[in-house]
């Protein structure tokens, strides 16, 4: 564990989480959520939980981003609130 890496990745995780819930464009929110998952994956790897990181990379950053984009594509791109 290198605390400088931890700090940078954690800051990026928080930034992307806030960005994902504040942004109005749902397609961008989905993509940012994918970035968030990938940063979480980096954080897991950094802490030594490689199996969890692998799952996060394949499920969180990979397939669920596709699901989000497919759902946005079939509904609406703008939020009401």
């Amino acid at each position, binding site marked *: 564990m290198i605390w400088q890496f931890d700090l940078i990745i954690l800051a990026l995780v928080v930034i992307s989480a806030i960005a994902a819930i504040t942004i109005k464009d749902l397609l961008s929110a989905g993509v940012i959520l994918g970035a968030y998952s990938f940063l979480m994956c980096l954080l897991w790897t950094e802490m030594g939980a490689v*199996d969890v990181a692998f799952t996060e990379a394949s499920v969180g950053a990979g397939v669920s981003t596709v699901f989000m984009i497919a759902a946005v594509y*079939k509904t*609406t791109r703008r939020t009401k609130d």
Partner: protein
Amino acid sequence: MKAIGLITVFSLGMALFYATIDFPPWADPQSPASLHVSPHYIQETMKETDVSNVVTSVLADYRGFDTMFETSVIFTAGIAVILILRKYSKKEDEKFLPEVSEEAEPDIIIQTVTRIIVPFIQLFALYVIAHGHHSPGGGFQGGVILGASFILLAISFNLKAMLRRISERKDILLGGIGLLIYSGIGALCVLLGANFLNYKVLHLIIPEASQVEARSYGILGVEIGVAIAVMAIMIAIYANLSSDGKYDKGL
């Protein structure tokens, strides 16, 4: 309304933070988990299950019952998506019209790259499943990667191209078969006279396998079941989401 929401979230968060005080300190060698449970798993895994990756042996052997129900959670989620979204009538639903309606031209570069890369993705997925005993990976990850290869096919061609390779009927059947493999191996252990999912007794039917090796083979068997179920459910969810339950062209 927003204020009530904020207050609820804040107080709930405070309650959760307060609850963490009761946890043992981080990485405390005297905490109950580090005294009995973790040392046993870390030291005895190789002797008891012949699996060098502790995470895999805990997931599929020591805590095999948990993983079986995780798989059934995924299966149930897929069935729920199919029940809600799948439409069998040809009637157009005007409620949600997609904003982007124009057809994208099929791109020869994307299609060629997909055609080349999909076999390698699937080979890597099989490696992840089979090598979960000795390196990070296993049924869930391998199954998701296998499903992702089919989803890539559906994105870069269209949904019909994917359904020609794995039809809806075959896909849902595979989902059920995956779960059946897992619970079937558990039931087989009961039939051979041990507890549910106690792979030790499988040495009676696997030729030339000791009890320890039988546990390793049992883990491999349930990982394959998990992978098949996860792959099928991922494909089913994507097909329903992207075609609005109509299984036509897709995105």
